[in-house]
């Protein structure tokens, strides 16, 4: 690393993120009551929504229930979707609410998302080691998914939910704040803490010389 500039975050267009041209047609058909059009949309997003509910609930049964409820509520309330955002962004907001309800039910003592949380501790990075280029390529896809699921599960819910929405689902800071009933500064401070903690947790897997 000779340059002082760290380039922008590179988000590769993944097949699951490409909005297919037929999406507005499918949404319109589903709105008119076409179940098969809606099932096509479900098939398109089920993997991502399941990852989201699993990351938030950290419980497979709850994640499955939350995913099912999210898709059903989406179908029932499709008339409320006005097309001001992507269909997926709208779906994510429903799924997050379902997942959070499950999480609160199972862990009633869990810190509430809109409560002040201490973001000041543990901000000094430890383990300052270079990872080298493309560290994720050292792991097979399944193994990598397992690592990512494990480290995000170790974050406290207020942090992992914000990270999930901002950095995985790519909602804006404002959309995340609105979805979670938080202020923009609260989203930003939680996101910073989440990113630093995940960096710390991933260091053991990705530091230079480390391999599977």
């Amino acid at each position, binding site marked *: 690393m000779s340059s*002082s500039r760290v380039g922008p975050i*590179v988000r590769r267009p993944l097949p699951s993120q490409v909005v297919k041209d037929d999406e507005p047609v499918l949404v319109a058909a589903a709105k008119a009551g076409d179940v098969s059009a809606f099932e096509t949309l479900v098939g398109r997003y089920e993997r991502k929504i399941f990852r989201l509910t699993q990351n938030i609930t950290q419980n497979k049964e709850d994640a*499955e229930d939350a995913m*099912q409820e999210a898709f*059903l509520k989406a179908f029932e309330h499709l008339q409320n979707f006005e097309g001001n955002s992507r269909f997926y962004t709208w779906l994510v907001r429903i799924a997050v609410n379902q997942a959070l309800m499950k999480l609160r039910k199972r862990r009633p003592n869990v810190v509430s998302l809109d409560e002040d949380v201490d973001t000041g501790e543990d901000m*000094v990075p430890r383990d300052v080691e*270079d990872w080298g280029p493309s560290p994720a390529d050292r792991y097979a896809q*399944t193994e990598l998914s397992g690592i990512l699921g494990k480290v995000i599960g170790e974050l406290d819910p207020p942090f992992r939910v914000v990270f999930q929405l901002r950095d995985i689902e790519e909602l804006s800071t404002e959309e995340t704040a609105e979805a979670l009933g938080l202020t923009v500064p609260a989203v930003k401070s939680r996101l910073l803490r989440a990113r630093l903690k995940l960096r710390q947790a991933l260091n053991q897997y990705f530091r230079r010389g480390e391999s599977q």
Partner: protein
Amino acid sequence: MKCKTIISELADYLDEALDPGLRTQIEEHLGKCKDCRVVVDTCKQTIEIFCNSEPAPLPPATRTRLHEALAKRLRRVQA
């Protein structure tokens, strides 16, 4: 600029949400401080690893249960 400031501005720096003056100051610091450069770079890699990772396929049984539940309840909603 102190290393602590780099950490507190890290998220906005990576999101390219800083004003140009502060951004320049941070990059001047990164040019001189290897530890901060490594932290900023590995934090950026952390985000990229997550956002560039495709979700695993649904376990077949989970997928079956989802589509059965939807089919059953969607028919009921339509009725």
